[in-house]
């Protein structure tokens, strides 16, 4: 294995920083990942319970104003109050995303931040209405982030059964067709919604190519029927929604006795430990971090480690980091092309954008810095088109439109987010390290102003490929 500190930062982190040193070896990377997270100022993202309370308060405010007499001054005042609270929440949400960016820019543990982004994408659950768009960053912070070095089954249970996912994949409306609730109200034709069950099998665990059938989707949906969201308590298991009887998923029978949430957790744990899941997760990690065509031996050693440790994700990541194929250098004109989100975040890190500027970012600033640019680059912040997340293939991202949008960003945003743009000649070193290609050094020096010099470095293949 040829460990390379530059590669450790670019391939397995958010890139080089002028202020934060890169890891010295794999041991250090693994120790950081297994250790506690470095604290960050202003990182007070609310817990699920706190967020529920906030949403409940907003809902109450809306209800109060709508109850007031149409056209009355009181109604106007209440509406203003409600809208002010919404605006304040929107600002807080921007701040929480700012905290994520600040971590990417300033953390010595870039690997953890990349893994958070990877798993947030794996368990994509964008909000379909304003409330859940508010909740989205807290979902990632509470249900995904704490588990990046845990067993996969813990993350699966935490994310797939989170109110955000239940909302996104319509689970709250899924009711066993023969449940006591459905039988009590035959006129409402209550029934199952297969969405969550399908995506758990197809995307979260086994993978779409795996050997499961429509029958398994249906049976898993029946098992999940009791799971729903209560606005006050969060996720609850409601017996009267459950489908009676036992249910067979991948040949194993669950829920032979009374319906219990433990049956749901058991099937999720079994799915998490399935060899197809080990292969699916290992491959996805390797493709994301190392190469679009990952080395077969790398995949095997990751999947084997996965199965040996019942899906301990820190172990699987360590297996990847200890494999020589993960450190194979890329020649010019090859290597993984950074996805837009990584491109922007690594640019912010190379620019060492002050922590306070990110954690204190206003919603409209965040839109200009990140929201609108990412959308034009084809990767709106944590809002993929479907629950399968964003595409991994480079060909999805190397497009005229995407490149134009990157150039647009590289020319306009850096100058607005740091007090003073660095000297492009120094910035080449900062961003690309001692391996910087001669052409980029030349371009940085020959640029007619700092703004374009910085943009040229950020646009260079050496910066955009890892």
């Amino acid at each position, binding site marked *: 294995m040829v460990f390379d500190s530059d590669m450790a930062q670019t391939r397995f982190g958010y890139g080089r920083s002028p202020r934060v040193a890169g890891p010295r070896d794999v041991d250090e990377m693994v120790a950081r990942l297994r250790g506690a997270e470095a604290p960050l100022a202003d990182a007070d993202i609310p817990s699920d319970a706190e967020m529920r309370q906030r949403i409940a308060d907003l809902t109450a405010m809306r209800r109060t104003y709508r109850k007031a007499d149409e056209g009355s001054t009181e109604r106007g005042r209440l509406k203003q109050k409600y809208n002010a609270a919404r605006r304040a929440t929107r600002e807080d949400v921007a701040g929480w995303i700012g905290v994520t960016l600040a971590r990417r820019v300033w953390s010595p543990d870039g690997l953890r931040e990349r893994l958070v982004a990877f798993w947030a994408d794996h368990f994509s659950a964008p909000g379909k209405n304003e409330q859940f768009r508010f909740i989205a960053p807290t979902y990632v912070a509470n249900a995904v982030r704490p588990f990046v070095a845990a067993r996969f089954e813990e993350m699966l249970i935490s994310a797939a059964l989170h109110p955000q996912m239940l909302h996104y994949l319509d689970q709250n409306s899924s009711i066993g067709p023969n449940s006591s609730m459905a039988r009590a109200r035959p006129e409402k034709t209550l029934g199952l919604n297969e969405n969550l069950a399908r995506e758990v099998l*197809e995307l979260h665990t086994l993978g779409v190519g795996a050997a499961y059938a429509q029958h398994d989707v249906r049976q898993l949906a029946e098992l999940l029927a009791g799971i729903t969201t209560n606005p006050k308590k969060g996720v609850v298991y409601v017996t009267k929604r459950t489908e009676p009887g036992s249910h067979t998923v991948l040949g194993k029978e669950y829920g032979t006795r009374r319906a219990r949430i433990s049956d749901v957790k058991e099937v999720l744990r079994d799915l998490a430990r399935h060899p197809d899941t080990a292969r699916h997760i290992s491959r996805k990690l390797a493709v994301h971090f190392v190469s679009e065509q990952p080395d077969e031996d790398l995949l095997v050693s990751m999947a084997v480690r996965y199965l040996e440790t019942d899906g301990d994700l820190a172990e699987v990541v360590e297996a990847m980091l200890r494999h020589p194929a993960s450190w194979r250098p890329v020649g010019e004109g090859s290597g993984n092309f950074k996805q837009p989100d990584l491109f922007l975040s690594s640019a912010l890190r190379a620019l060492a954008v002050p922590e306070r500027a990110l954690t204190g970012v206003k919603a409209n600033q965040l839109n200009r810095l990140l929201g609108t640019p990412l959308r034009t680059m084809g990767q709106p912040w944590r809002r993929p088109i479907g629950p399968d997340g964003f595409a991994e293939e480079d060909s999805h991202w190397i497009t005229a*439109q995407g490149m134009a949008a990157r150039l647009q960003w590289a020319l306009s945003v850096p100058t607005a987010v740091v007090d003073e743009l660095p000297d492009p000649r120094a910035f080449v070193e900062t961003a690309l390290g001692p391996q910087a290609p001669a052409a980029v050094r030349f371009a940085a020096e020959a640029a007619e102003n700092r703004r374009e010099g910085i943009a040229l470095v950020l646009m260079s*293949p050496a910066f955009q490929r890892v």
Partner: protein
Amino acid sequence: MGKTDMNRRMFLGRGLAVGCSLAASPMLTPVSFAATGGENRLVVIILRGGLDGLDLLQPADRGLQVLRPTLAARKPTGLEVTGGAMLHQACAPLWPLWQAGELAFVQGVSTPYRNKRSHFDGQDYLEAGTASLNGSGRKDGWLNRMLQNMPGSEMRTAFAVGADPMLLSRGDAPVETWSPDVGFVLSSQGARLLELTMERDPQMALVMKRALLLAGEGGGGAMTADDADTMGALEDMMDAQMNPNGKGAAKSHVRVAEFAAGQLRAAARVACFSIGGWDTHANQARALRIPLTRLSDSLLALKAGVGAKVWERTTVLAMTEFGRTVAENGTKGTDHGTGGMMVLAGGAIRGQTVHGHLAGFEEVDLFQGRDLMPTDDVRRYAAWAIRESFGLDRFTLESVVFPGVQMGDAPRLLA
């Protein structure tokens, strides 16, 4: 945030200060596309999420009303098409197209995809146009394979418009992807240096070159800062970018259609884009209005944008990955199904027609007791549309563009 407040002036002012050409949106780009053979146009719209054809065009059928107690209980819209089916109220703006013979439907069609009902697989089938998806290897789309068999086809013959990457147009034939939301300001010196840094990365270099060209950069067409029209247009564009919640952004699907129309009016012969939002698992009566309105807006924007002469030669195919369950689910919506619907529009088509055969709604008629039984292959219709628009021969269509498809008798899609 730092000392400088980011504002629109920053995006504009600094670029003007360095003084060279002013990049503009593609709308402002002088167009000089080489034309491919023929004047006909083909637009493919992928309706992502699974359009419920039975709601878009609701058959008058008692059996259906039993299975859809709320969805099929809608008030009559008065928009009655051939065979007594009723067009959805949200598509009322398209009624003049129907009356003018510029709108048609194909009912009961599907791709060969069966059983798993995954959006992602379903869309891959629809866009790949093949009878199966072999897991490994590079995938390409049928629209791209069609281009490879169109003589004289070049980079700007085909456009994939919008931010959504599409398998449909992926493959060896060059297809330009562009969203009408990108524009930037770079000096000509900067452009030359950019080229230099990418010299040893041909893939990026080529794409960057096209980006510069599309955004109006790359030498030649420099615009000056005091050109008032250009400034105005650029400011509008920046406005749309800077205010994603503004009214400009709310109609981004219209801008996509307008950009496609602009290219089709010039040298482009083929364009594709997607419209999402069809996955109506809950409260479909309300949820379906949004994508239907987008589809209507887009078709009308295309018609207005290409102008009467080009519209006469335009065929639009709107296709979806699968239909939805025939029965309403527990949440007044529908789940992923099988048999679906294709929408045809354009001045070139034989309109006022509902093609295809609708299987019944008795349990035995349904696919796996739940979905509309597919009665025909949607690829067959796409193949005929290509055959009639661009004259590709049957052998190529049945073996290369849509391998394994039996085109059968001509449905006579075009007028």
